[in-house]
């Protein structure tokens, strides 16, 4: 199987309003893919469906050939767009927590990354700033040897220096067996990291392709193409 994630005719309604409409997608293995679209286009809904946090209204989504469940959660590493760890926990507790539940978690890698960021493990999460909490989340999520990484707006609320750190972390932890799906609307910052892109609008994926192909064939950057396609 060449794709890690597939969805067919995927529909998700919120209170009768469609957040995703007839989405058909196939994500290849071993690529860094940008899920790009304006606010409210359905990026987060799609990622949550893949992570098993939402149930589809209709249609099918599969990860490595399986419906979202225990088996898929074991191979998916998910970073939500919000801080989601228990505030009472210390960083060390969180490392133990990840090591307890994820067999693919690399404790040493997490400790190394935290050390590089000068984040001590004896501090409780509630003592950390929002930016530091986000870095801790990213470190833990990226310290897994998962088959599929789902990163929802990883650079959304951070300063440019932190953005560089996050993107470096993503690239340095990438391996040919993993697929990384990054959702964002900050195309310019992320474009150099991507192999492929998916444009999503009003819950529908209407363009998917290789970043290099767009550069070569159209002579445009993804940022330029995005601005063109999503012009208000």
């Amino acid at each position, binding site marked *: 199987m060449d794709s890690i994630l597939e969805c067919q005719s995927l529909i998700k309604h919120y209170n009768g309003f469609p957040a995703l409409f007839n989405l058909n997608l196939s994500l290849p293995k071993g690529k860094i893919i940008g899920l790009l679209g304006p606010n409210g286009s359905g990026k987060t809904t799609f990622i949550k469906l893949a992570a*098993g*946090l939402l149930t589809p209204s209709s249609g099918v989504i599969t990860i490595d050939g399986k419906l979202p469940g*225990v088996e898929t959660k074991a191979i998916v590493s998910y970073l939500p767009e*919000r801080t*989601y*760890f*228990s505030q*009472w926990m210390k960083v060390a507790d969180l490392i133990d927590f990840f090591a307890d*539940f*994820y067999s693919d978690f690399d404790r040493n890698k997490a400790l190394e990354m935290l050390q590089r960021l000068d984040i001590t493990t004896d501090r409780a999460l509630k003592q950390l700033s929002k930016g530091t909490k986000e870095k801790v989340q990213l470190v833990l999520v990226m310290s897994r040897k998962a088959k599929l990484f789902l990163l929802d707006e990883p650079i959304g609320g951070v300063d440019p220096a932190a953005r560089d750190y996050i993107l470096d972390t993503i690239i340095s932890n990438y391996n040919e067996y993993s697929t990384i799906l990054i959702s964002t609307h900050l195309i310019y910052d992320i474009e150099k990291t991507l192999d492929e892109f998916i444009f999503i609008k009003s819950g529908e994926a209407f363009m998917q392709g290789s970043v290099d192909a767009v550069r070569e064939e159209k002579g445009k950057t993804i940022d330029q193409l995005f601005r063109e396609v999503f012009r208000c």
Partner: protein
Amino acid sequence: MLKKLLKYEFKSVAKLLVPILLGIIGLALINAILLSISKHYIFSDNVAMPTIYAIIALISSFVMLISIFVLYASIFILIILILQRYYTNFFKDEGYLTFTLPVEIKDHFNAKIISGLAWMFMGGITISIAVFIVALFASAPDGYIINTHIFDYIYIYFLRPIIEGVSTTDLIIYIVEIIVAIFIVALGQLLLYYLAVTIGCIISKKHKVLASIGVYFGINTGMGILTSILLIIITTIFAISENGYDDSLYANNFLQIYMLALIIMYSIAAIVAYINCRSMLTKKLNLE
């Protein structure tokens, strides 16, 4: 996985509940000490007792009043903390971590039940110990610090009226029935709380807590009506069938049958709540 989940469940709730439970015991001890000292004043006919004893007696009464309030409040806080853990861990931001763990929904839910029940019982035991400590000191005769005959009193006033005229076999059945009833009612009640929170959080997008409270009042009213109907039925049956009955035998039989009916009723409620909660968490969970 259940063991691992339980480890974090207990750790999380213990941070808040252990200080509260220790506080209850601490307050009981303070009460006991103040009662021991002020007893010299209370039991004395000597109006010329030092003012300090009068002040301590006053403080003692004040602390006793606060303790009664704290005791009631702590039962409420205990339930709220158990439910808060369920709510935040499943339906708030923490749910994003909880439900992306490679763990079956049934394990998540079972962990919440086991931990919730364990904390309910620990709370019950702590409150019983606190009441016992105060009773131990408060009932001591003048000149004694504690009442060394407290177990005799418990036997005479509480146990003897129940076990008098009951055979050993019946007594064992009676005790087992009480233990089972306490366990089943606690379990049923906890599951009904969880059911109310689950329904409230799934049906309402914005006012989850309010919706949960509303659902709970609905469920509680239903259970209240069922319990009353049960009581009326049993009383009527007894009134028809028992003529010229022995008082203690009547009371014992009535209690036994009432407990049995409660066990059956709460077992059904627990099963219904369990199946519904699990099904909703599996099929209807939407962390929007």
